[in-house]
């Protein structure tokens, strides 16, 4: 009995220490990426603009169709639920208030973050994991090419630029979807809807959503890279760490979102 308890405690201890180690690795990766972004030129090893554009295309432009489709659907769903709930109190006119604030501050960044985590975070983990197994990372090192500068920094820049951009687009599409349903159901004109929205939603609310989505982009990159770098055991290992990367990214996004919301609503 005591031995089993001891084993369990040891396992917990190991998990906790490996968790801390991952945090540490994330911090080192972030620091190194920032170092190469800022100091790369001085070291004659700049972060390549073409590589960054490629990543931007992959993270941002290629994700536009799915983000648009999901955002439109969620916007309409929010309007449907909002009107249904508020009708109980006879306050369905207030649906614009609920939809406007929740989309710009929460749903836009959250849905975009989750979709990017599933789409790009997983592919980043799989790509780095495969590169590790096929010795491509070693090849970079022995060629004198820093892997963080070559792989991580462009991905980080692309994520920090494109996730907020996608969030802005997603919020816009969600509000359009919601407005479309509201005008159909409540007969509110597009002009009245926009006027009401601009009354309620301030620039600060939009910046709140965009600011935290940049943080989400950074988290997705670091989680993807760490999990990719930890791949071992061939194709099965790649699959396992890719799944882990998506799950951890989504957890990290939701926890960060909660902390961000708590802090932001108190300032």
């Amino acid at each position, binding site marked *: 009995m005591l031995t089993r308890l001891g084993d369990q405690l040891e396992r917990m201890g190991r998990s906790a220490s490996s968790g801390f180690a991952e945090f540490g690795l994330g911090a080192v990766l972030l620091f190194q990426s920032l170092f190469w972004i800022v100091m790369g030129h001085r070291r004659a090893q700049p972060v390549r603009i073409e590589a960054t554009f490629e990543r931007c295309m992959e993270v941002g432009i290629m994700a536009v169709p799915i983000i648009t489709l999901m955002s439109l659907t969620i916007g309409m769903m929010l309007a449907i639920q909002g009107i249904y709930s508020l009708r109980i109190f006879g306050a369905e006119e207030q649906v614009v208030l609920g939809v406007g604030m929740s989309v710009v501050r929460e749903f836009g960044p959250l849905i975009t973050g989750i979709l990017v985590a599933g789409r790009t975070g997983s592919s980043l983990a799989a790509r780095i994991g495969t*590169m590790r197994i096929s010795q491509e990372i070693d090849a970079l090192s022995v*060629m004198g090419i820093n892997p963080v500068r070559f792989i991580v920094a462009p991905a980080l820049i692309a994520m920090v630029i494109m996730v907020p951009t996608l969030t802005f687009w997603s919020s816009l599409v969600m509000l359009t979807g919601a407005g479309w349903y509201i005008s159909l159901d409540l007969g509110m004109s597009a002009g009245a809807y926009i006027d009401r929205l601009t009354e309620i939603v301030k620039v600060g609310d939009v910046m709140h959503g965009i600011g935290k989505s940049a943080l989400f982009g950074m988290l997705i990159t670091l989680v993807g890279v760490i999990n990719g770098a930890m791949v071992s055991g061939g194709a099965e290992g790649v699959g396992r760490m890719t799944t882990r990367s998506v799950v951890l990214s989504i957890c990290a996004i939701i926890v960060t979102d909660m902390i961000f919301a708590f802090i932001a609503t108190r300032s």
Partner: protein
Amino acid sequence: MSQAVLEHPARRKPSMTEIAAAPIMIEVRDLVTHYGKREILHGINLEVRQGEIMVIMGGSGSGKSTLLNALLGLLRPTSGTIRILGQDLNAISDVERTKLRQKMGVAFQGGALFSSLNVLDNIVLPLREHTKLDRNTMRIMARMKMQVVNLSGFENLMPAELSGGMIKRAALARAIVMDPRILFCDEPSAGLDPVVSSAIDDLILNLREAMDMSIVVVTHELESAFKIADRICVLDKGHILTIGSVEEVRNSPNERIQNLLNRRTEAEILDPDEYLRRLTGTQSQ
């Protein structure tokens, strides 16, 4: 540099005296490495001279890949020194190490070609990252190296579209694109049919002749080792059994070397009782 330039019909191996007189390119002293708590290399001493082909040979688990990783700076040794071109690999700054690595080329066992780049872009990559040459010059240089390894015409293929021999050739082309002074090849003929394997061996010999580079080859293919080596370093369980010319290794009285050369398995060498104890997992007395 054309293929014709690289072909040396009267190819001659340097004598031991010539090798001994050449400058030292790689110097390993008392190298000890660990994986976790397990000691893998137990005090390795080795020198590779200019223009020499040194083959590191040994069975599975002998430590040859660990030694290669240490030589490449991918594995930090527990103790001992590795000096490459006179510089202590593990004592120099990152900037100096990056510069040093530009003088080293590595052809990995599986090629390690970047799967997202075509063959030409893979070969151009070191030039793009370390030189300020214009795009056309870089591409011309890469094509020249492709011609050297007989890979002309396959520039636009992706690594997934290449055969095993072509991957090895592309990896060699990328390894020599910066005209390195030292070339490392990890199992260059592993997994290839005898004809392609022999062609890769010829290619390595031609590269040495044409570019006067030192070449370190890690292999367990005896035929290939005897064909290309000036000297052979035989590793066994993390120790060097011998370093010598092909003839010296062939004629070595050391039983373990002869077992390796005659492809005798450990099971055949072991005392039958000890073998049985190992199979059943019981402790030997």
